[in-house]
């Protein structure tokens, strides 16, 4: 093992001096990211393999490495208010290639969860919630498709909540437990009037 110069306290002080902390850093941010994402976000050494693997990077200002740094530095506001947060397609290429075995994709997901707690969320995500609340499906059936299904010898509605709507109540109970429907309705109304 490498030997450190000086005493442990001296080393600790030296490291503390080296830590880059801004006024708007929130050390809890990294803790929250780690507990929601269940990945070792603090181990990131900024190699950039994630951004190099990212299909969204070449066509936008989204840099996943930047979000990893923000997690480590606790730059919560900067991360959660950046519209690029929502450009991750969750393809997991960065996670497959990360040399530190971190899951940057899950870090992004955890940041999105934290953003939602502040009502920061694109409306299309909430519309999916509303669709599932009413029908059980994110992409529900329609009449054109019902006719097509019949021609194929399938039931007009698939044997899901569509054919058995009595199961929808259970789904609504789950979504109400987390107050997800109420929050979705409220935010959509605020945005769209």
């Amino acid at each position: 093992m490498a030997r450190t110069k000086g005493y442990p306290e001296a080393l600790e002080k030296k490291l503390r001096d080296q830590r880059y902390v801004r006024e708007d850093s929130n050390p809890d941010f990294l803790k929250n990211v780690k507990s929601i994402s269940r990945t070792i976000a603090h181990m990131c050494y900024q190699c950039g393999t994630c951004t190099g693997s990212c299909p969204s990077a070449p066509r936008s200002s989204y840099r996943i490495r930047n979000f990893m740094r923000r997690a480590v530095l606790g730059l919560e506001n900067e991360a959660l208010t950046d519209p690029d947060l929502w450009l991750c397609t969750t393809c997991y290429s960065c996670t497959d290639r990360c040399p530190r075995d971190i899951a940057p994709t899950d870090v992004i997901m955890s940041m999105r969860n934290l953003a939602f707690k502040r009502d920061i969320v694109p409306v299309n995500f909430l519309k999916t919630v509303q669709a599932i609340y009413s029908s059980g499906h994110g992409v529900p059936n329609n009449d054109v498709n019902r006719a097509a299904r019949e021609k194929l010898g399938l039931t007009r509605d698939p044997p899901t909540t569509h054919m058995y709507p009595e199961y929808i109540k259970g789904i609504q109970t789950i979504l109400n437990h987390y107050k997800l429907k109420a929050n979705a309705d409220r935010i959509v109304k605020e945005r769209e009037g």
Partner: protein
Amino acid sequence: MAESGANHKFAFYLGCIAPNRYPGCESAAIKTCKKLGIELLPLKGASCCPAPGAFGSIDLNVWYAMAARNLVLAEQMKMDIALLCNGCYKSIWEVNHKLKHNKDLRDGVNEVLKEIDMEYKGSINVYHIAELLYNPKYVGPEKVRDSITNPLTGARIAVHYGCHLTKPHKEREFEDEVMLNTEHPVWMEELVAALGATPVEYRNKMQCCGAGGGVRGYDIVHSLDITNEKLINLKEVGVDALTDICPFCQLQFDRGQIEIQEKFGVSYNLPVLHYCELLGLAQGMSPQDLGLDLHGISCEPFLQKVL
């Protein structure tokens, strides 16, 4: 050749896009699997998986609980789940795996499920149909080859693997190690070759379709630009069709080509078929039986080549 009767039975988890947009995938899966000794039974009352991008982004706890409800329905049938969509695989397989291995998550989910008189036990497994078709324990490429009556000879077919079946590979547990290769896998190409077609490699094959993570709804132009890059790479090598194992990727490539034409002014007219639809054609099902007329991009040029 296949023994008569079903050797394996599964609860067939449908998801949303297959039954509600590409019902041919659903009927093709049921019929082709039956010929291969796999019976797919309806999973009554199943819902959206729920969409890992949309729900996972908002609140992972809701994602766990909603997926667990679908898992419990299959547990009550005492049957393993088979499904045909990568997005559903991420929700259903991964939540099952996480709940089996993390007591804190399992307890949290069961607290909610108690309100609807359900309990997650962790008693079943989840499989993607592509995985069953490739694994000789269930089917395997040899048996697929033996089942076909109309080989797709001369057709050049490229594969889009999609993301969520195999990635992140560090968390996946496929029996066959070749399925854990996410940089340059060729197991799907083996399945394409088993249909008599010529599998074709292309640049950046493993790139995402662009639809996932809620990006299709959030920024459609950005999302389509990723799809367009894949279509450019496919055009470069010249293929008759693209095959996928995920109806959401299929939607992005098929309906997406129409949107790309509108927004970018480029057209490719590349037929996009789920592997189950291809298998159906090779097993002698007609394009009408497969609902291929419901596709946004006409499959005609490809059909003329193989029928």
